[in-house]
């Protein structure tokens, strides 16, 4: 089973909805949209030869310069039996940060989605409990977005006037 086969199979099944196929460092990467992501995950999981039954990772990314698709959700799938990984990306626009949840397909997506929500504010529709997971509940911004600072404003022992910063 090669990346080529997977890509061809997906193109037959999903056509235009999967695009931008790449192979950085041998890892098949492609983009889809949020209407198809859940059925795609399910298809890959149930497929009798591919069997991408393991959701390795789910995370977000913020690309502020990428007009109309500022946010990305990135899924890493692993087919344990064939030992092949794929990476699926879904890009979302800043104004409409909604994407369906992947919990029905992979239970492990639960916390990873909550983490992504916590960091980027991406809303996973029909997630059973989409609240902040790592940060305090009272937080009013999404810290991993590029516009927010890293530092704690309360640090006192740092003197920026001195050389080296």
């Amino acid at each position, binding site marked *: 089973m090669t990346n080529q086969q997977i890509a061809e199979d997906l193109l037959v099944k999903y056509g235009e909805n999967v695009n931008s196929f790449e192979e950085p460092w041998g890892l098949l990467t492609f983009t889809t949209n949020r209407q198809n992501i859940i059925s795609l995950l399910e298809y890959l999981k149930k497929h009798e030869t591919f069997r991408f039954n393991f959701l390795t990772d789910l995370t977000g990314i913020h690309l502020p310069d990428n007009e109309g698709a500022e946010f990305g959700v990135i899924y890493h799938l692993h087919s344990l039996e064939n030992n092949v990984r794929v990476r699926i990306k879904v890009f979302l626009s800043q104004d409409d940060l909604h994407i369906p949840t992947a919990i029905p397909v992979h239970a492990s997506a639960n916390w990873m989605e909550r983490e992504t929500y916590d960091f980027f504010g991406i809303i996973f529709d029909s997630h059973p409990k989409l609240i902040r997971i*790592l*940060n*305090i509940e009272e937080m009013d911004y999404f*810290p991993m977005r590029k516009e*927010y*600072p*890293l*530092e*704690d404003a*309360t*640090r*006192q*022992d*740092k003197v920026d006037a001195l050389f080296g910063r």
Partner: protein
Amino acid sequence: MSNPVKLIDAPEGFEGSGFFATSFENVIGIARSKSLWPLPFATSCCGIEFMASMGSHYDISRFGSERPSFSPRQADLLMVMGTIAKKMAPIVKQVYLQMAEPRWVIAVGACASSGGIFDTYSVLQGIDRVIPVDVYVPGCPPRPEQILDGLMEIQKLAVNESLRRRNTDEYQALLESYNIQ
């Protein structure tokens, strides 16, 4: 015992012919210093080093501190080890409030003392922003030797402190500055 072990010195007092008196406070101070039960508030890496200092090689029990009391009521010494995030800060304060006097606090490691490398939005920049700290132990994580150094520093404090530490004005002022009571 082959190793040279320093015994506690007799407390300073008035020595005369057949007459030895010492202030009661000193005796209690020494007793306290030899029986500091820690509450290991271990959150991360430094907690593992605390385990090492409980282990056979460093053996914190030599100082009479091997009984970790996880109930704050029974502990004398709050050892905050590891990063304290802002989410955790109220809990640290609550644990401190639940402790019975006399109580001491060690901030073990860079994170607890000052935030360390985690100068971030989520990490408290040193626990002395929420509770008064008596001893800071540098290192990330500190070696068990350094943790023991910190403990010995607390022992020194305990010996020299007045019996009713709570009632002194400075201590009250200190607590007030942290909005305790």
